[in-house]
């Protein structure tokens, strides 16, 4: 390989056919005289612009588009040299760091010698050694192209905002399950907002047997085994539900607050009593109607109950998880949009309540297709306010444009699966921790189950990884007509 050109932080390297270099590979451009080396990553492989190639190709197709039949007597065997030159490639590489002595710096302000530099492939294992990507709490994500394991540190997810994105059926949920189970090994508390009921089988192996996580997985299905009694609710949580999920106007909310205080003082905080109180409350008829319509929405959701024995305490599950680690799966499958929003408002409200009172230390929240249940104002809340309370969110989506741009800008880690759509790639490329060229060039060619890990987990050295297989029961498969 030979150094050809440098423009900005892009380096072009001429590579010959016997040198196997692919997109995503790392190269070390070493200038012995300068005592420095550049770490560059191949983001695109192109044909080198060899003069005369067009003529070469054209003359092989002169016979009406068919190959002209003939024999070449090439006594000096020049033909292999011709193909060698013709197949030479230009590697478009992004400068990632400079190695100077033992240390790494993100600088690209120097230029290695074009004639004296040696260029060699930098194995991922070596890169990680240089970049000190290791840690006390390893999570094996999978294998790199060189068959070495990509191990990230669980602490690099701690206190971070993560995004897992890619088109359908590329392995996003698989990776999030891997992260969840890995976090469970380190006794983390995880809450999953499971839109399609995919995570319910996390405690089972693929053949239906209990696995090591069985006792740590708590699946809560709203209106089935997940109900709340009014007297377990804090007024603020319920008001959030009424205002944000059920769009209760301010005036009516004020009346509701009075009704709630009245019932609480009487010790009659039940659904039945709430309905009676609204009916008999002295207030404007429109306010009454507004309160009634929300009341019936709450009743019809089936999420609220007067039977204390039926009510599951989310708190209990969270406290259990706090001790030994555990994942609370909120199964939102078969839940209507409104009910989904009610449940999510309740869960998030409860989490904030427990975290602010330091009853819980921190929670890893995994949210699939969050735009379907998360209200607008929560996006900013999650990345700013809630992060400080200890909610560390991982968004999982196949529609990257549903996540707001400021979320991408603040994301600490992105696990990017294949995308072919230009617009999708454009959205993801707005992330602050990565350059647009890398995202657009590498993500487009990622095979299924391969992801491009970006951000703090890989110390800002984008790495392509084949996510390792996981022996958990697959749930939430798409229902098919022909099978």
């Amino acid at each position, binding site marked *: 390989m030979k150094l050809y050109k440098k423009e900005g932080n892009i380096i072009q390297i001429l590579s010959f056919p016997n040198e196997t270099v692919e997109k995503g590979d790392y190269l070390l451009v070493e200038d012995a005289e300068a005592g420095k080396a550049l770490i560059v990553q191949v983001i695109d492989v192109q044909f080198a612009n060899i003069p*005369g190639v067009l003529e070469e190709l054209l003359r092989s197709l002169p016979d009406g588009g068919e190959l002209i039949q003939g*024999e070449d007597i090439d*006594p000096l065997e020049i033909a292999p040299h011709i193909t060698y030159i013709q197949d030479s490639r230009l590697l478009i590489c992004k400068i990632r760091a400079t190695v100077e002595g033992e240390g790494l710096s993100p600088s690209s302000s120097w230029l290695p010698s074009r004639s004296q530099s040696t260029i060699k492939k930098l194995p991922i294992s070596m890169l990680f050694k240089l970049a000190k990507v290791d840690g006390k709490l390893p999570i094996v994500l999978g294998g790199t192209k060189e068959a070495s394991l990509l191990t990230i540190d669980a602490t690099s997810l701690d206190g971070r905002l993560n995004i897992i994105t890619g088109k359908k059926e590329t392995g996003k949920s698989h990776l999030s399950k891997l992260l969840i189970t890995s976090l469970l090994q380190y006794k983390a508390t995880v809450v999953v907002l499971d839109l399609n009921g995919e995570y319910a089988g996390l405690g089972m192996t693929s053949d239906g047997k209990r696995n090591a996580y069985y006792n740590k997985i708590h699946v809560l299905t709203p209106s089935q085994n997940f109900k709340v009694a009014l007297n377990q609710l804090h007024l603020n949580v319920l008001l959030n539900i009424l205002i944000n999920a059920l769009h209760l106007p301010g005036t009516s909310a004020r009346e509701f607050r009075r009704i709630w205080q009245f019932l609480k003082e009487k010790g009659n905080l039940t659904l039945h009593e709430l309905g009676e109180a609204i009916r008999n409350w002295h207030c404007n008829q429109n306010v009454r109607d507004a309160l009634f319509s929300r009341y019936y929405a709450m009743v019809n959701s089936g999420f609220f109950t007067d039977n204390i024995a039926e009510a599951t305490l989310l708190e209990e599950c969270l406290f259990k998880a706090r001790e030994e680690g555990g994942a609370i799966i909120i199964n939102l499958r078969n839940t209507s949009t409104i009910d989904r929003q009610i449940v999510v408002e309740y869960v998030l409200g409860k989490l904030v309540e427990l975290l602010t009172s330091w009853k819980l230390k921190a929670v890893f929240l995994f949210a699939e297709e969050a735009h379907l249940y998360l209200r607008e104002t929560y996006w900013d809340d999650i990345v700013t306010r809630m992060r400080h309370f200890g909610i560390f969110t991982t968004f999982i989506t196949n529609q990257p444009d549903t996540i707001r741009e400021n979320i991408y800008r603040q994301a600490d880690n992105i696990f990017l699966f294949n995308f072919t759509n230009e617009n999708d790639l454009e959205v993801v490329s707005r992330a602050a921790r990565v350059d647009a060229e890398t995202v657009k060039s590498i993500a487009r060619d990622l095979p299924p189950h391969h992801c491009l890990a970006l951000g703090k987990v890989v110390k800002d050295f984008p790495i392509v990884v084949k996510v390792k297989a996981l022996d958990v029961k697959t749930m939430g498969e798409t229902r098919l007509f022909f099978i």
Partner: protein
Amino acid sequence: MDVTLPQRFIELSIHSLKHMQSNPFQLNQQTLQQNSSLEQLHAMQPKIQPIPLNPKQTETTIAAVDTSSIKLGETSRGIIIAIRGTSVWKKRRNYGYLRVGPFIFHITEENIKEVYNTLLKAYFPEQNSQASPGFAQIPIRMANLLERWLQASLAKTVSNGIILFDGSLTAGTPDTPVHQLKEILHTARSMGNTVLAFTKVTTLRFNGQLITDAWLNQKPPCLIEIANLKPKPPLVLLGDVYVAKLTNGNCAFRLDIDREVPTLHKVEAVEKLLGNDLITHSYPETLRLAHILCTFTANEVIAMQHFIQQKYSLKLVNRPDMHRLLFGPFGKGESHNEAV
């Protein structure tokens, strides 16, 4: 098709290259391919009457030969050149080709005569040794030797066909001794072939105008015979000279047809060419392919330089182009200077 390898070419090529190992090697700053030799002929009294042509579809093999040479660079002792030749034929609507080479030679003051005369003797034993050409002529002269060998092979192996040569049938020049060309034409005739030689760029003039420009308004396809040509000795015309306007457009070419072929057969041969080959811009596709297939592309030149460097450990020297060095953007390079 006679596919016997030009063994002496290979031997001499390898032998000459062995003697340049580890020499510094200056890449060529100019390319030299397919140079046509200038002829000193003047047309006197052309018969203005054009001969109309009717394409004849009778199944006839069309074959063509062309060669290329190129200077790859210089060493401290001489130059490195490459030569390649191609025969192309069209038989039953399909094109086929045989491409021989490239042969790479290291030509020095010491071996220039030996290399040339050894090859000359190997292929044309009856030919007397000639004064060795200079460095400037040697690529073309070597290519001519290969071209004659390919032409002789086609003349021997093709029967009842049309053989197309690139250039004229003028003999008596250092590249084309009379005896050599006569022999090839005789062999071709004995196999029932007719040789047609197309000259891409002619210097032949009539009334001060190039003959190929003089009858552009004639209705194609037609031939215009240029009679009474008197070549200056030692030049000898072994063919009758015509202007061939075979298609519509502004292209016409000088066409030499073997003089020994009866007149009717001459015209019939061109008609068979029209009926059996694709003609674009008055030029036959078979000959065009021969040219295309033997011409060296820039990619091939780089590959040959790579081969020399790898196999014979030549050190590349980037000697500055003096014109560029002295005159900056006004220095147009050595090739331009030579053209001037």
